[in-house]
């Protein structure tokens, strides 16, 4: 099986879907000739031409809104927001429109748009090129939010998102782009949206997280094996709507749960995960539900000292795991 980076898996998924279905097209800022500021759409402009890899004016509400219109017509737009932080001008189109089109028309219309955006920190991106923005959208029925953690999942979930008949927000960790590599089959596979995935089987403590933090958790878990601590890791993969069953099962499995997000703690996605556990597994718990997250400050600063202070990393994860195991 070929080994690919996380970002190569994105490009591959896009390319294969565009070859498969000529209704699929990409639009966004600098996605065309330049191939995207992260080069996620590299080569697509040459292969598919200007209109299927469309450089738009600098206007995110139009990128989303025009995409939604095209999707209602029957196209399959894949819109790129250059950074997740810059999705904010498009919030009205996403929450008021995309999320509600099927519902408000009583199933008459639908908007199969995929909106991709790189999120996350640890790349000297400062306040506005580092944010996790999923919680802004994670209370909007009608939307699905996918946040993959491996190249394999990226390809299967991006394809599933593009083929989905409802709007999907697809957030890609920008530090994962070139950091993470893994086996990605050549076949045309899709993975189910809405399903969490056990990334590691273990018996002592349960870690539930998503995105780049899966990687940190896997690293930390390896280390803790030596100390005889056996970690179970659940990758949410879809952070809205959550896979409640999988969460409940994973929590019950060990009775000790650590939730991790790179986002600020208060109001993040893992609060909901904790609530699901508190509602369904109370008597299976042997320890309070722990959360490891960024501090409640607007976003991570630029200076390396303070950026590091903010970011979740394998050491912080290992420490939190060990404490929970010893609880």
């Amino acid at each position, binding site marked *: 099986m070929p080994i690919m980076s996380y970002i190569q898996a994105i490009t591959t998924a896009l390319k294969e879907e565009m070859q498969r279905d000529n209704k699929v*097209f990409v639009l966004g800022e600098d996605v065309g000739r330049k191939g995207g500021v992260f080069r996620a759409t590299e080569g697509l402009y040459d292969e598919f031409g200007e*209109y*299927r890899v469309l450089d*738009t*004016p600098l*206007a995110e*509400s*139009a990128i*989303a*809104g*025009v*995409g*939604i*219109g*095209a*999707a*209602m*017509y*029957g*196209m399959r*737009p894949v819109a790129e927001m250059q950074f997740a932080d810059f999705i904010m*001008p498009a919030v*009205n*189109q996403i929450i*008021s*429109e995309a999320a*509600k*089109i*099927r*519902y*408000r*028309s*009583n*199933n*008459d*219309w*639908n908007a199969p748009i995929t909106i991709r955006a790189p999120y996350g920190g640890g790349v000297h991106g400062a306040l506005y090129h580092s944010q996790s923005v999923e919680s802004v959208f994670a209370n909007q*029925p*009608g939307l*699905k939010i996918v946040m993959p953690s491996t190249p394999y999942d990226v390809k299967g979930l991006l394809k599933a998102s593009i083929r*989905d*008949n*409802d709007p999907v927000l697809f957030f890609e960790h920008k530090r994962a782009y070139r950091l993470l590599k893994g086996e990605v089959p050549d076949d045309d596979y899709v993975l189910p949206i809405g399903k969490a995935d056990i990334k590691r089987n273990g018996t002592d403590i349960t870690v539930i997280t998503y995105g780049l933090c899966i990687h940190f958790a896997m690293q930390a878990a390896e280390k803790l094996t030596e100390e005889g601590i056996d970690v179970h890791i659940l990758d949410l993969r879809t952070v809205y709507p959550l896979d409640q069953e999988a969460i409940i099962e994973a929590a019950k499995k060990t009775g000790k749960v650590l939730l991790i997000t790179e986002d600020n703690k208060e109001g993040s996605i893992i609060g909901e995960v904790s609530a699901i556990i508190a509602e369904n597994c109370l008597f299976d718990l042997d320890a309070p539900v722990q959360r490891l997250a960024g501090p409640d400050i607007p976003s991570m600063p630029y200076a390396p000292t303070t950026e590091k202070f903010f970011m979740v990393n394998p050491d912080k994860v290992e420490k939190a795991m060990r404490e929970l195991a010893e609880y």
Partner: protein
Amino acid sequence: MTKNRHDKLGLTNEDVLEMYKTMLLARKIDERMWLLNRAGKIPFVISCQGQEAAQVGASFALDRNKDFVAPYYRDMGIVLTFGMTTKELMLSGFAKAEDPNSGGRQMPGHFGQKKNRILTGSSPVTTQLPHAVGVALAAKMEQKDFVSFVTLGEGSSNQGDFHEGLNFAGVHKLPVITMVENNKYAISVPVDKQLACESVSDRATGYGMPGFTVNGNDPLAIYDAVKNARERAVSGEGPTLIEAITYRLTAHSSDDDDRLYRESGEVEEARKKDSIITFAAYLKDLGILTDEIEEKINTEIRDTVNEATDYAENAPYAEPESALKFVYEE
């Protein structure tokens, strides 16, 4: 003596009579809705009154078998022309399950009907503009010869989506026609507190497209403008911005009291230019609308509205649990 102005637009006498009938039907449905609201039978009305000529004139200039429309909440004249029925509109007024717009999920005025290519609309203003641009982008990509047509109020033309959508359309020369129905007010705010420019059409240059300001009480003038815009669009010349000068004859909605912010004299003045009266006069002067025909039309419309009202009033609401359906594909 009144001059025939529709001949040279390629409109037959039947066409203009049909236009008038549609305008009048819209007016009569709207009036009935107000009565139902005042009688406590329906919770909300938002009116087309005063804008029917612009709506119907424009719709007649489109291809009703292939063009897409993205109407705003006052556009009863547009959706009627595009095939929505009186009964369907009444079902929506009563919020009944059978309402094709939303199954009673949305307020009246939130149009949408896929089989007639009426895009589903929402309450936040101007969001439909980029949607229409998106449909036009699809037309260009797929090399189809339809256009999309989108409307909004003059107040709504101050939203960012107006700017972003029209610039997008201009850059890619997309087949989309935008008609701003300038009815002088955005709820209570008069146009001079809304717009810094003289005419909304002044904004067209900024988006590299032609802009026209047209008398919105004259369905023929609007027809002409939209017809030309459509020709430009399908021949690849790009988008057009049209401003229709109208007047809002009712309060903003059934929840509004317009005496708080405008003089009744102003409304009286506007009523004199009401297209329902002036276009009828045009047709009468030309002998197209005879007393006999008028009576027939009136009776027909009355019957249609009565029937639709009865039907809708007696139709069932959606089941409570049906609220859970269609969040996602099922």
